[in-house]
């Protein structure tokens, strides 16, 4: 029990920090960065993505013994696509205007590189439960960074978080329009990646 406890501890730490999908693997930024101008959009998107990653990794590793090598990629894409369609239909049914806000980006979770990456790198060669843990915590590591991006963008751009006006930012702060527009997303993400990588290397320098 202790060995797989430390193993899963390593998977969790890797997913969140050591091998973080955004600033370490630099994968899967496409579909979510577009909606980071609003924290609520990003939260829904990240929840959908984390759910899809965890469940897809779980299913892929369940079927890993039966999928022939040649069509492995095709089978993985179909599994991911089916989960994404479930999420899409759920949003359309229970939260129509959010689904309208997100537009095609919910569908684009299918081609999100981090899901295919985790399935290909981990789920294909590991038992279901660790794969589920790996998918879940990679999704969480991914969501943390993008939530940080969206909070910065919404706060500086619109002075609100989740739509509620913030005390200082909504009154005295003259809004940075650039944060609402696409270049703002690039700059914010770049700064956060810079911050995280510097923290990580100074840490690693001491240990190695």
């Amino acid at each position, binding site marked *: 029990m202790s060995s797989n406890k430390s193993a899963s501890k390593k998977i969790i730490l890797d997913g969140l920090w050591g*091998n973080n999908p955004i600033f370490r*693997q*630099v*994968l899967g930024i496409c579909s979510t960065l577009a909606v980071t101008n609003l924290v609520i959009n990003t939260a829904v998107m990240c929840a959908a993505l984390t759910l899809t990653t965890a469940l897809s990794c779980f299913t892929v590793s369940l079927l890993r013994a039966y999928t022939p090598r040649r069509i492995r990629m095709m089978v993985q894409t179909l599994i991911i696509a089916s989960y994404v369609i479930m999420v899409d239909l759920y949003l359309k049914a229970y939260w129509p205007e959010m689904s309208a806000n997100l537009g095609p980006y919910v569908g684009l979770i299918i081609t999100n*590189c981090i899901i295919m990456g985790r399935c290909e790198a981990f789920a294909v060669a590991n038992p279901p439960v660790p794969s589920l843990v790996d998918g879940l915590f990679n999704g969480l590591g991914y969501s943390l960074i993008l939530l940080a991006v969206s909070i910065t963008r919404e706060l500086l751009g619109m002075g609100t978080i989740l739509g509620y006006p913030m005390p200082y930012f909504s009154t005295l702060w003259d809004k940075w329009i650039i944060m609402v527009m696409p270049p703002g997303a690039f700059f914010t993400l770049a700064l956060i990646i810079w911050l995280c990588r510097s923290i990580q*290397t100074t840490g690693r320098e001491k240990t*190695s």
Partner: protein
Amino acid sequence: MKESPQQKKLEDILRYCPLVSGGFMGEDLRPVKEIIDTDTHTVEQLGYTNEQIAERMEYIRNEGLKGLGSVVKLNNGLEVRIDDNRGLLPSPWPDDPHRSSKTITFVLDTDTGNELRWSDLSIHLIRAHGFYQGHGSPFRLNPSELISVIFK
């Protein structure tokens, strides 16, 4: 990181390379470009260039070669021994036809007791690509340690 096919081919060769046992990357998961950037960055911070380092390593190797396998004492307290083997090692970089002889240089710094070893291929990889190999690889050279030994 999504990489171009050429980059992927280089990564594949360096990780599972049939030239040196254990490959050139040890158990370092970082992409090659990042390893090179980090090492070049440390070298720059110490005020040297890869070219100077490669030249100095070559000088020490040639001094050691005169001993034909026995230990040669350099003036600054370094002891050099060459272990020469037949055959040539091609460079793993995809478009780099350079070949280096299987000569391994052992350097012992008598004052600090540091022992370093590098092959001719290591010298070429440092000069041409700034590649000091990944952590855990048998021929990994830590730039700061290397500079402290060879520029004594």
